[in-house]
């Protein structure tokens, strides 16, 4: 009889920090201690706290072990699973009452600060079930929503409940999902399609990947429900080939669902047929744009097409198509089972439900969080995210990746939902949230995202292809210290032109990082142009490294490590020191900063 479950995260984050080996070690040790009949190992999807991986949870206690190494496994098996003593040094606990919790009591995962404020709807099964086992999904009410829809509801009723829930597209745009479905449903055609956009391309975003890895059946079920609602019998999931674990698990989910008769012909004896296919993308950012994505599925080069006609009328293979993002779909089964009112009770007036964010950048708890819409940025960063490491100050957060904008520290109390973010010139985006501290140069940050869009622009329309390139050149000029105030105005003008004239979302949003930083951090641009200084000390061409000759004790470590031989001995011996000090030749200095990190006497500074 199984009395304990050991859940080991098999998401991409923990896999890359070695969770496969941990799993093997657990299997070997459990066998060695003769516990094979009592303890079961389950490989799950992402728990969310990727920064602390590999992550292991032992149930029924719910003990959360973080940063587990192969050497720790024997101890956990012997102490915890055999003798019932938690291995305290590995237990993750950030609760305030940490020290008061007695040995017998449990620090439940849900009590930790990281999880306490979260509300897991989309991620409810991630880190709980084995994603490769269809029966575990069924045990968690899986496919009950599909059953209910096919046996009790008409397609119109399904669309109505999605409309009533207030669910909006989680891919970034925030278009009402129910409305999207209702625009497609009445269109007559011999074939209609459901398409799932799993082409998650923003740097730093991994929400969709985690759903695919942790709960793939949820997507399969939701797409079948959407198919029934609009009268489509075929579905495609477009997922990038860089997500091998996600692709493998999704394929297994589709195969298993087919075997159990949850895909295929005459599902639940209702006469409804639905089939699902995976199409792999080669990783072009533009293929995350809905029309380019469909063009790519059709086997052509991924380029957007002009709208109208909209996909609801003429989409994939020229047929009426509904395309939604992974996270949007993942909400559907819950809405069907628990009702529109339940869903609408979460969130704000115009943004219902929850949103998954991938926290990254300068933050303690890098990972995945799901929070109700309307949670303040302060709560996300300071409470759930654990704040900024190394005592640095929060400067801004970038939402929506290369299509989004930044929220400055002064607006940290903004309630995060679609409309509030749009109002301050940002966008929700798909959910990447990159946190920046005081050491980040905002001009450099805008440049980083622009480099990305210049690379990823498909080249079909001129404003995007040429415009973004010119923008980048201007930013280069500014960060090189060669810019003028006029350049800043020109930059802004070109941004607006590109936004208005580009063919698809990629170009229309590409200038956003520049516009947002210009809006909130214009003084930094001015500092680069007028004072020829980078306030954050990032832009190399504006930095000068100098040695304080009175602090320098003449050890020569800087000169020894300088890759450009730019540091040499002087004749000056500072009072109280025995050796002559060193100096940097600015004409030879490459501004790598090696001297500064080597100097133990803090004699080198950058201005």
């Amino acid at each position, binding site marked *: *009889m*199984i*009395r304990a479950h050991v859940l080991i995260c098999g998401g991409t984050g923990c896999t890359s920090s070695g969770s496969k080996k941990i799993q093997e070690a657990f299997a070997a040790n459990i066998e060695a201690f003769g516990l094979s009949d009592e303890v079961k190992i389950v490989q799950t999807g992402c728990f969310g706290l990727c920064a602390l991986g590999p992550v292991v949870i032992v149930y*029924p206690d719910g003990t959360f072990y973080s940063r587990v190494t192969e050497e720790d496994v024997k101890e956990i098996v012997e102490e915890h699973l055999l003798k*019932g003593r938690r291995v305290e040094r590995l237990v993750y606990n950030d609760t305030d009452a940490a020290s008061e919790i007695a040995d017998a009591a449990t620090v439940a995962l849900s009590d930790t600060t990281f999880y306490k404020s979260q509300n897991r709807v989309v991620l409810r099964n991630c880190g*709980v079930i084995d994603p490769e086992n269809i029966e575990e999904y*069924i*045990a968690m009410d899986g496919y009950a929503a599909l059953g209910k829809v096919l046996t009790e509801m008409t397609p119109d009723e399904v669309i109505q409940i999605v409309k009533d829930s207030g669910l909006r597209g989680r891919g970034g745009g925030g278009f009402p999902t129910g409305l999207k479905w209702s625009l497609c449903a009445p269109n007559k055609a011999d074939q209609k399609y459901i398409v799932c956009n799993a082409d998650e391309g923003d740097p730093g975003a991994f929400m969709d990947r985690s759903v695919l890895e942790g709960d793939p059946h949820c997507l399969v079920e939701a797409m079948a429900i959407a198919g029934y609602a609009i009268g489509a019998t075929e579905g495609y999931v477009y997922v990038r080939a860089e997500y091998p674990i996600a692709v493998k698990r999704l394929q297994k989910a589709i195969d298993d669902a087919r075997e159990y008769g949850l895909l295929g012909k005459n599902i639940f*004896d209702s006469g409804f047929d639905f089939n699902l296919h995976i199409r792999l993308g080669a990783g072009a950012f533009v293929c995350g744009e809905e029309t380019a994505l469909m063009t790519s599925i059709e086997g052509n080069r991924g380029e957007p097409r002009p709208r109208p006609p909209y996909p609801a009328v003429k989409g994939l293979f020229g047929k009426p198509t509904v395309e939604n993002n992974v996270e949007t779909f993942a909400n559907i089964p819950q809405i069907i089972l628990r009702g529109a009112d339940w869903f609408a009770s979460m969130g704000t007036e115009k943004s219902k439900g929850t949103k998954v964010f991938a926290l990254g950048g300068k933050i303690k708890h890098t990972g995945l969080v799901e929070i109700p819409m309307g949670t303040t940025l302060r709560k996300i960063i300071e409470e759930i995210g654990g704040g900024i490491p190394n005592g640095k100050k929060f400067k801004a957060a970038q939402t929506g990746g290369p299509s989004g904008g930044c929220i400055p520290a002064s607006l940290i109390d903004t309630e995060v939902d679609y409309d509030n973010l749009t109002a301050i010139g940002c966008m929700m985006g798909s959910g990447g949230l990159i946190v920046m501290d005081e050491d980040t140069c905002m001009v450099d940050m805008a440049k980083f995202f622009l480099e990305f869009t210049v690379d990823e622009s498909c080249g079909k329309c001129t404003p995007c292809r040429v415009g973004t390139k010119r923008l980048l050149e201007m930013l280069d000029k500014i960060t090189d210290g060669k810019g003028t105030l006029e350049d800043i105005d020109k930059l802004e003008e070109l941004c607006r032109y590109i936004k208005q004239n580009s063919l698809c979302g990629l170009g229309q949003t590409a200038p956003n990082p520049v516009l947002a930083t210009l809006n909130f951090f214009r003084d930094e641009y001015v500092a680069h142009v007028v004072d020829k200084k980078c306030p954050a000390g990032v832009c190399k061409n504006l930095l000068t490294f100098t040695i304080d000759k009175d602090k320098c004790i003449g050890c020569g470590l800087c000169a020894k490590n300088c890759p450009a031989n730019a540091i040499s001995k002087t004749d000056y011996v500072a009072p109280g020191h025995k050796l002559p000090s060193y100096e940097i030749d600015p004409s030879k200095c490459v501004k790598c900063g090696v001297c500064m990190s080597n100097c133990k006497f803090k004699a080198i500074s950058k201005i």
Partner: protein
Amino acid sequence: MKSLAELQAIKDKMKNKVVLREGSNELRVVVGMATCGIAAGARPVLNALVEAVNESGLADKVTVSQTGCIGLCQYEPIVEVFEPGKEKVTYVKMDADKAKRVVEEHIKGGKVVADYTISDLNA
């Protein structure tokens, strides 16, 4: 899949296997599993408890887990039952059969098995 009943059957079959992870804690049964407990035969007691709880269909309400040394080594194997709002009940010198009786009478029936409790032993 031809019917909702079929789906329900799979769900019922699997529910006991995943319920362990939901951590619903209406009632906690804890077995002392330090060296003293194991030496005195705590493992068969633990296994009997898990089995009996599952058989009685209470797995979604009752958590069976282990703990370290409770401190009364001469009375091992010790089983403690924690119920919210009630005083802790401590059973001592347990074995597999006694464990089954505790599940049947106390956990299912709500009546403490006075024969095995520590207070009785002191008397």
